[in-house]
């Protein structure tokens, strides 16, 4: 059977509840947030381990190791929760590819969950034990955690990459015509792509350190020498990290299929230029540059990467006649409104309150007393949730009564 026709038939018959491009845009945007925390977590974990082994009683390495251990701990939580959205939106418009790829490597898809739990628990053990004068052997927990995180990255990479190769699915599922339902193999890995994305963890933690030094400028317990150390280290990690990332990126660029038009595609070229630009900028970063600006630049680079991933996906699937634009649409306004109202109302007010409170409290040594504006934001957060829940029930009961009793 023609695999292009098969893929179009495998689409969910219910169609999608809004224009597919809307899901595509949300998928790309939310992936930027997800991958940013992936990079930060892996970079912070790597730096925490490096600092842990490096630390003598002198210098700031021990302190840095403890700080980065905490960053990685929080980072994993956020990368998981932020990964839910792109996973969801991918399943809406690329369901045939994503599901087929997962089923073909079923054991790995399930293994991903358990290895992630083990990795995170191991990292937590390291976090609890990594205090001043910590014993050396606890570093094992950190290594186990980081290695499992890298394995999980590899599984996700393989599942995503296999989804781009529908022409090979049947060969993987039934090699030689013999069906294999074990899902025991990762069938395709594009090492340059995986290594490029992973390598961005090094500059990511560098950019974070520059911002970290800026953030704590008002805290007396984070003395200028420590902040200068963090900023200088961050600058080195960022500039050298971007240079390092260029190698696998160029390898990835060269490995695109002939005739796909990807090798010299403008977005791919833009990505290469963005990495070079970030390397140059961070190499010569001026003392007066705002500490958060390089981080913003890094997010911009990730936005280009997210866009590039999507361009690559489209280029791989187009020859098979798969185009999200012709997915059947059954517009569902109430649930569309539910999402966007929740995103702006709850995400904006409640998320905004939490982030503001955490951000401001962290910059103060001792007790932080909320300003009038923050206090209002807090009241608004509770109020919007009360309103949301009230509307949810009133609206729901009306529909429930109509459908069940009238």
């Amino acid at each position, binding site marked *: 059977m023609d695999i292009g026709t098969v893929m179009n038939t*495998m689409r969910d018959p219910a169609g999608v509840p809004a224009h597919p491009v809307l899901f595509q845009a949300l998928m790309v945007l939310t992936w930027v947030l997800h991958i940013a925390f992936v990079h930060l977590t892996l970079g912070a974990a790597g730096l925490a381990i490096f600092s842990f082994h490096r630390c003598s009683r002198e210098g700031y390495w021990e302190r840095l190791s403890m700080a980065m251990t905490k960053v990685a701990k929080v980072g994993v939580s956020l990368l998981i929760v932020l990964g839910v959205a792109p996973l969801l939106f991918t399943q809406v418009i690329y369901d045939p590819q994503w*599901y087929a790829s997962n*089923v073909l490597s079923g054991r790995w898809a399930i293994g991903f969950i358990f290895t992630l739990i083990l990795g995170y628990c191991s990292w937590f053990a390291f976090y609890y034990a990594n205090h001043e004068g910590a014993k050396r052997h606890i570093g094992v927990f950190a290594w186990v955690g980081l290695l499992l995180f890298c394995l999980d990255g590899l599984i996700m990479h393989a599942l995503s990459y296999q989804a781009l190769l529908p022409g090979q699915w049947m060969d993987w599922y039934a090699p030689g015509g013999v069906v294999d*339902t074990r899902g025991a193999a990762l069938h395709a890995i594009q090492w340059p792509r995986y290594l490029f994305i992973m390598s961005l963890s090094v500059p990511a933690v560098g950019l974070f350190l520059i911002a970290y030094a800026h953030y704590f400028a008002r805290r007396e317990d984070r003395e200028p020498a420590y902040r200068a150390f963090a900023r200088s280290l961050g600058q080195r990690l960022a500039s050298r990290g971007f240079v390092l990332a260029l190698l696998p990126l160029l390898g990835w660029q060269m490995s695109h299929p002939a005739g796909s038009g990807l090798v010299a595609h403008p977005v791919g070229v833009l990505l290469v230029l963005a990495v070079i630009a970030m390397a140059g900028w961070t190499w010569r970063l001026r003392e007066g540059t705002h500490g958060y600006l390089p981080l913003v630049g890094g997010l911009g680079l990730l936005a280009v990467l997210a866009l590039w991933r999507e361009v690559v996906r489209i280029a791989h699937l187009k020859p098979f006649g798969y185009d999200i634009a012709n997915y059947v649409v059954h517009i569902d306004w109430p649930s569309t409104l539910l999402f966007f109202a*929740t995103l702006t109302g709850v*995400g904006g007010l409640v998320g905004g309150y939490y982030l503001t409170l955490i951000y401001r*409290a962290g910059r103060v040594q001792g007790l932080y007393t*909320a300003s009038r504006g923050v206090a209002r934001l807090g009241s608004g957060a509770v109020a919007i949730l009360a309103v949301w829940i009230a509307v949810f029930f009133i609206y729901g009961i009306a529909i*429930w009564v109509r459908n*069940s009793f009238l």
Partner: protein
Amino acid sequence: MDMLGMYPTFYVPGIGTAWVMGIIGVIHVVASHTSVGASFLFALLETKAVRENKPQLMEFIRKYGMFLLVFSYIIGSITGPGIWYAITVASPRGVGGLIHNFVWVWAAEWVYFTVEVIGVYGLVYLIGKVDAKSHLKLTWSFALASWATMLLIVGILSFMMWPGHDNWYQTGSTNDAFYNLNFFAHLGTRTGSMFVMAVVVGLMVASRIEDMALRRSVVKFLAPIGLVGGLFAVMMFLYYLQTLPHNAVVMLNTHLLPVYAQGMVAVFVVSTLWLLFAWWKPHRIYTALAVAAFAFIAVVGVWPEERMRESMRKPYVAGQYIYGNQVIARDVPGKGISGEVDRIAEKGLLQLHPFIPDRLRVVNDGNRLEVGQLLAKVACANCHALERGTPLRNIPDKFHGATDEDLIAAFLQGPLKHGAQPYMPRIDLPETEVRAIAHFLAVTNSGQDVERLIAQQRSATRVAADASTPRSE
């Protein structure tokens, strides 16, 4: 070309993908219900701490919060997407159907998840670092946001059982799917249970408090909340049973209650006694006892509850329109969906399924066993193991080890073909496919090594094919 939008099959011998999903699901339910329930305990306790000027209560919240960070926000938050991965490999069309009906609901839930994860870190780490009023707002908003995640997921879970009315099939509207007949009953049951779970976990944390006055104060506060939550959960569960479809009631009465009823009663009795004891003798809440009570309630209580909920849905996985074996069971005009059972009856799975190798599309003596095995995996293995003596309703034992192909075929062409078993899908297959499945099951029941036989037949067929191919030399 006529084909169905079926996926390749992932098969886990013995326990099937159903148990893989069940194990991950149970871990997630325990962790997530604890988290949502605990968020309200925090809010109530903190309100008490602020009103009565008892800052020492915040120490308990901090300790419990730290426990939650590991238990709910590592294990719970990973197993949440873990359920997606599990159902993806178990029922790709089932999860696809849910995603395409509820994507915006899930997306709204994601907003809450994100807020919740940021919130729990703020809640734990800002104790004593921000003014009391700001922290209290954080805690209350965290509780409401946590419960909102439950409000949103329960609508989807209860739709998986059934919409409870015909409207959704006609309109295809998410509203009609989400606010289904058993939504509120289901929500009430889970809301009550979350308090029980959170209090039981809270008692574990409280058992570690060395300040006896503080321990007494905390336990005396928590225990009655757990008791009221438990009572509410039981009442709502009884109401929930009244909102179930016929197939679920049959499944419940014939297969589930005989197995799980005693355990459910035991969990109810043990949790009630445990909470009453805690209320009565708060200083006697020893950690070992608290951990044992938690483990008992989590394993004996939640596992059967989740297994029952999953099993009662059978033969469907979503909205009574997608069977467990991935076949669309009926038309849904509101979404432009057409049932596939009759098409399969006419043309057969071998012709319509896109992931059947060409050499197996036509049954012959050389591949009948192999085709039978593959068809059994495609059509049956979502709910049944194919190996004798294995725990997931294995088919050989269901046939009591029968080796008579005609007897097995009679069942396939009788009750199964006509959908006469309320908890089984209607599987109407052409004669050759029925015979292939019956052959496979008969050989399995005879105790022969099926894999070895298939390998032998395959090589024999290859040798015969090679022999019949003229040499070019």
